[in-house]
């Protein structure tokens, strides 16, 4: 299973390519794997959306799930 992650704001700047992870079945694992690959994420607060719904707590990721990582923006 391979999932592609849509990123926004400064998280999109962490990788010039799309972030693709294999064998990730829940959001806790997702976040651990992301931190291993992008340690800068440890210092950024962001919302995680699974299938376009912002999650709280560990959430299952299905084979066709769409994952998005969204940091807050402050600009006005």
């Amino acid at each position: 299973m391979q999932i592609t992650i849509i990123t926004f704001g400064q998280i999109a700047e962490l990788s010039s390519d799309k972030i693709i992870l294999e064998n990730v079945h829940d959001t806790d694992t997702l976040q651990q794997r992301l931190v291993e690959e992008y340690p800068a994420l440890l210092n950024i607060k962001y919302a995680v959306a699974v299938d376009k719904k912002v999650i709280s707590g560990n959430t299952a990721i299905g084979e066709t799930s769409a994952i998005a990582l969204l940091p807050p923006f402050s600009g006005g």
Partner: protein
Amino acid sequence: MQLNSDDKERYSRQIILKQFSEAAQQKLLQSKVLVVGAGGLGCPVLQYLAAAGVGNIGIVDDDKVSLSNLHRQVLYTTNSVGLSKAVMAVDALLALNPTITVKAFPVRIDKSNALELIKEYDIIIDGTDNFATRYLINDACVLLQKPLIYGSIYQFEGQVAVFNVKNDNGVASANYRDLFPHQPEPDEVPNCSEAGVLGVLPGIIGAMMANECIKWITGIGSLLVNKLFIYNTLSNQTYEMEVVAKEETNKLIPANEEEFKATQYSFSCEVEHTFEDVGIKDFLSLMQEEDTVVIDVREIGEKPIVTSFEHINIPMSVLKNQEQCISQKNILVFCHAGIRSVDAAKYLSNSKNKVYNLKGGIIRYNID
């Protein structure tokens, strides 16, 4: 309130819309909107609300116009440089529409004046440029049960949402803290002056905010309630995500005006909530207290596995997105050597809990 002949002519192009009509125009003319921040987002918001005939507009901004504002803050001219944004915006709006009331509040919104300012208006628009003020406005709106139109930008991306709108049963929709529970640290996210912005972006996002505001006032269309809309000007891609109102969010928001005024929003005078370092004896005895949780912040798979006391495992790498699940009054944290747990303890400390850190970690006491 009857529309006079000038009103009928001024607003004719929107009144002839079947969904809009004179009734909607009357609602606009009777409405009171507070716009906080008269910058990149605030300018288009103000311009469109004044043009559409929002009868009473308040503008809060303590800043002065600078030359580098002019590429996006389109209410101002080169002659405005050095002058108050709130005052210059009032002049520009009254030149556009002298039939409405526009009031300048050339002050910085803070916890001492926010509630009084917000109380006077039906709906609030957040066009500010820093997190401290965004969280302050969100919390004040939740406390005073006022709807909040939110917009923010970063380089080529913008976010729009409508927060804290009551449904037919009187239940409030999601607010900013349902999306981002905690304020980012200073310097965690660059603002426009650091990250840069193309002037058109706040124009687009600000116009969307004005659109949501007009829809809320007049009751037409559907709002970005329990939703966050994201737009990228480079790719023209849009993304919408659902945001759900969560019960645990309420714990993060001051429960009354006194608590609100005691909350620290600004970083510059932030009072750090403290935690306490304890040895194993105190750690074990604190565990027995009511409403207590013990958290191992080591990553999954780290050894030794602790079996000598009950605890939960929330690795440091995910703690920052899970802290809303921790509602206990007493929080005990530990890790291998007591370094990561210090960060966890600092992070989890707030005005409503007491956090204890096992000094030196489990390695010091040969715990397993």
